[in-house]
């Protein structure tokens, strides 16, 4: 009796929870209707920030060879990196294809035994079979150079950060921002300072792939048992002795993962680096893209995936190797034999991969795509047009016709509610900077695309995640697929999207969905599975149905994980939508592409790159809410 009184008393005092948000939403809707079309900031391709950067670029181009900063510093870096790339490439080419295959096979054998060796040999042979030997070697050289540099800088920095909390505090926010930076944003500044070509491509790839090198190394060092370190110090070891004899050996396997992640990141940058004329497989992909021929892109995409898989297997084997077992003499001998046989064979076979051993898949693939296009035309067009006309276009109109101050207020309110005051102010600052840079309209368009893609990603991801958490069998089928999906370089997802939908905004949305869904599924599934069994048991013991358990227990308790998934989904989607500028996504991503294609638009591309970063930080701050990256991310994720 008394409890009833209390409830009714409190409900009289307090409005239902949904009233306040709904009221605010209604307020915003009214404000929009009243002020629609005013206070918009239409795009002007000659905005002052754009022309300023374009002029800066012209100035730099004119003074690249007489300004001291370039003459004595930047050009030396360019020369050094260029020389590194050239020598690596020369060595790899000089080995000849049998040599390279043999040496990779040998290394793989040492890393993980005959199975991995077989994979490596088969994988590298496939480059030749696909008719992409030269491009693959260039890509390998580029990735190797970038990874070596990343490790040379990242590992010491990571060790330092792992040993000193102060350094770690200084480095972490920088890495956070680097990880939400869409890849495109790196390119323009690099082209400015390092010109175009292989060296600039190596540097871009290096910068992109350095965060995991630092982050995971720091993590590896932090994880070293403090007692072992203390024991070493208690025996009078110097810091160097402790570093070499305790920290590094104990951090070894985690550091192998750092190397692995660095390689994977580097590989996923290969295509985009081609926009500043980096050589390799990326060139084939871009060629296919600009001919709209999936048949050209697919083999190159497959080659990059194969390279990723081979290198991933090798590094993971190194990381997982039983620390006590030594590599058997038989294995060493076999690896050595393989590594020697290759170069020896190189003397007797033609330098070029024999043409009769290649399979030209361009035409069949193009035909298959054509077939799909013609036969699925009705369906794909229907899906594309429905989404575009009923979701994308109205939303885009909403964002672009809303007054800027209304959008800013909305961002502030939502971010404040979800993530608190500081992130909200950061988000607001990013948004205002976007406006000041003259990229407002295009940012709003990109935001529209991201919003639609994120909504779809979360819907699909949460459903699959729930399904996986509820059915062990479904999860078992899905896991390996997710694993594979996460090893693949991002742009690979553009191919099927492009084949099905041509160059439109929808293509970018489709690609970002397949790109971002796997990590979301994984986070949701893990979040649901991590709900303690005892709680579920307790709920079940009160007679809840399994649906009730899901809605009333598991989902609320997995809230953090789901919010994190949303945050991740948004960051990933943005990255992909921006890359989607290559396939018709328009707005910021296209501005970046255009900036590299048309000199007068360089400034616009550059500023658009900056705007993507601001947009990324803004979206991250709005949604960081429950979580602040408590998990080390695998390629931006996991």
């Amino acid at each position: 009796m008394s409890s009833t009184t209390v409830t009714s008393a409190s409900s009289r005092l307090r409005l239902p929870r949904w009233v306040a948000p709904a009221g605010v939403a209604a307020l915003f809707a009214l404000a929009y209707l009243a002020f629609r079309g005013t206070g918009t900031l239409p795009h002007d391709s000659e905005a002052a920030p754009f022309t300023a950067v374009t002029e800066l670029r012209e100035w730099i181009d004119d003074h690249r060879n007489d300004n001291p900063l370039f003459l004595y510093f930047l050009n030396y870096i360019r020369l050094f990196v260029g020389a590194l790339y050239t020598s690596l490439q020369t060595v790899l080419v000089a080995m000849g294809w049998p040599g390279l295959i043999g040496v990779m096979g040998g290394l793989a054998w040492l890393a993980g035994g005959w199975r991995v060796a077989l994979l490596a040999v088969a994988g590298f042979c496939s480059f030749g079979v696909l008719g992409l030997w030269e491009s693959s070697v260039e890509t390998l050289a580029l990735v190797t150079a970038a990874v070596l540099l990343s490790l040379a800088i990242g590992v010491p920095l990571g060790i330092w950060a792992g040993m000193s909390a102060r350094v770690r505090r200084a480095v972490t926010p920088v890495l956070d921002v680097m990880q939400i930076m869409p890849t495109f944003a790196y390119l323009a500044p690099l082209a400015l300072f390092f010109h175009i070509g292989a060296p600039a491509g190596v540097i871009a790839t290096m910068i992109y792939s350095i965060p995991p090198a630092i982050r995971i190394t720091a993590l590896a060092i932090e994880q070293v048992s403090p007692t072992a370190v203390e024991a070493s110090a208690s025996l009078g070891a110097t810091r160097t002795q402790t570093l070499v004899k305790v920290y590094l050996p104990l951090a070894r396997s985690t550091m192998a993962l750092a190397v692995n992640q660095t390689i994977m990141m580097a590989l996923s940058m290969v295509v985009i680096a081609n926009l500043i004329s980096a050589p390799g497989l990326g060139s084939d992909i871009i060629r296919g893209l600009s001919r709209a021929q999936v048949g050209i892109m697919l083999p190159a995409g497959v080659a990059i995936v194969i390279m990723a898989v081979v290198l991933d297997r090798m590094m993971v084997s190194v990381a997982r190797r039983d620390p006590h077992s030594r590599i058997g003499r038989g294995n060493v001998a076999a690896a050595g034999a393989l590594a020697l046989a290759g170069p020896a064979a190189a003397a007797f076979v033609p330098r070029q991969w024999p043409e009769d051993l290649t399979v030209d898949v361009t035409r069949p693939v193009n035909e298959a795509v054509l077939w799909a296009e013609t036969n699925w035309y009705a369906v794909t067009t229907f899906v594309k047009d429905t989404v575009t006309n009923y979701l994308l276009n109205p939303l885009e109109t909403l964002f672009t016709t809303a007054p800027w101050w209304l959008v800013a207020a909305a961002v502030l309110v939502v971010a404040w509610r979800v993530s608190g005051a500081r992130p909200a102010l950061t988000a607001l600052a990013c948004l205002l900077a976007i406006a000041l840079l003259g990229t407002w309209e295009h940012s709003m368009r990109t935001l529209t695309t991201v919003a639609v893609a994120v909504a779809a990603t979360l819907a699909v991801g949460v459903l699959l995640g729930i399904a996986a958490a509820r059915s062990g069998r479904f999860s078992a089928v899905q896991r390996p697929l997710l694993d594979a999906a996460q090893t693949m370089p991002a742009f690979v997802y553009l191919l099927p999207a492009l084949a099905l939908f041509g160059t439109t905004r929808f293509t970018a949305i489709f690609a970002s969905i397949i790109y971002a869904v796997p990590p979301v599924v994984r986070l949701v599934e893990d979040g649901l599975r991590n709900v303690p069994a005892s709680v579920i048991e307790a709920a079940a013991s009160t007679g809840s149905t399994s649906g009730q358990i899901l809605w009333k227990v598991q989902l609320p308790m997995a809230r953090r994980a789901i919010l994190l998934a949303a945050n991740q989904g948004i960051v990933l989607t943005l990255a992909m939508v921006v890359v989607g500028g290559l396939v018709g996504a328009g707005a910021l991503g296209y501005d970046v592409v255009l900036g590299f294609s048309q000199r007068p638009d360089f400034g616009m591309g550059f500023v658009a790159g900056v705007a993507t970063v601001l947009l990324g930080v803004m979206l991250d701050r709005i949604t960081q809410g429950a979580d602040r990256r408590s998990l080390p991310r695998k390629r931006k994720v996991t």
Partner: protein
Amino acid sequence: MSPDSAAIAVEGLWKIFGPKSESVLASQDRHLDPAALREKTGCTAAVRDVGFEVRPGEVFVVMGLSGSGKSTLVRCLTRLIEPTAGRVTIGGTDVTAASPAQLRDLRRHHVSMVFQHFGLLPHRRVIDNVAYGLEVQGAARAARHERAREILSLVGLDGHADSYPDQLSGGMQQRVGLARALAVDPQVMLFDEPFSALDPLIRRDMQTEVIRLHREVGKTMVFITHDLAEALKLGERIAIMRDGGIVQLGTPEELVGAPADDYVADFVRDVPRSHVLTLRWIARPPEEGEPLDGPELPATTVIKDAIAAASASSRPIRVMDGEKLSGVVDRVDLLAFLSGQDVPAAARTGA
């Protein structure tokens, strides 16, 4: 005992964690209790004004509950944790004033430590773990391996030299830790709760092992524990710590027989006193006409060991301090003591 003749001398040692620890030390805040101190300054005083001396060859136990500052204290001795104030002297060297090189020399040759979680290096074989101290000193491989093998057999690990730590049981791993500390032939060994991660039976074996080793190699030992039974078993003298300070320092008998305050008394309440106290504590002057021809026992006999003698003879036991009779104990005295009604004579007299 002067600081020079002590193996370890500690004076006025403070360790305050947190921002501006120096200024906290200088102010009167240092006298605040832990909760108030943290509230006011954000600092934690882990060690407060601790002083003691350890005799050469002694087993000195520091006992306290978790958070009492005992682990911090032992780390301050070799500056694995840098003390905020105070002076530590080991073997005549002023540790607190030592240069990094002197400190390294001290750690390499004079003091070694055994850790609660062993701190073994999983990527090294047992023998290389044991030889680690010699390795960082720069000893040649053959020499250090020879020494390591000797020590391994001393701690009963013959035949395990080529195993890896994770292939050994917990007790064996701690033997490796022990061997590593012994290998550098230090004068002082510090034990930081070395057996608390082991299960009870193995812990007992290891305690016996330490007692044996102490007998054989005669090192000065500082032993940290939270286990009173372990402290009483091993310690020649025991310092009880609470909230960073030493509340009582004395022999096991003194602690059990004459707790300095309620905290210590509470601590030792469940100790079977008959297992710790000696006849000295309950001997009384013979009464008029009491027969003095009962069995003779030295005053250092633990009370429980006197029960057999008492039950064998109806006459009072003569408690001997060397050749001198220091008092008598009869069956009634023993029963009264065992039933807990008796207040020990020494406590009565305030000894």
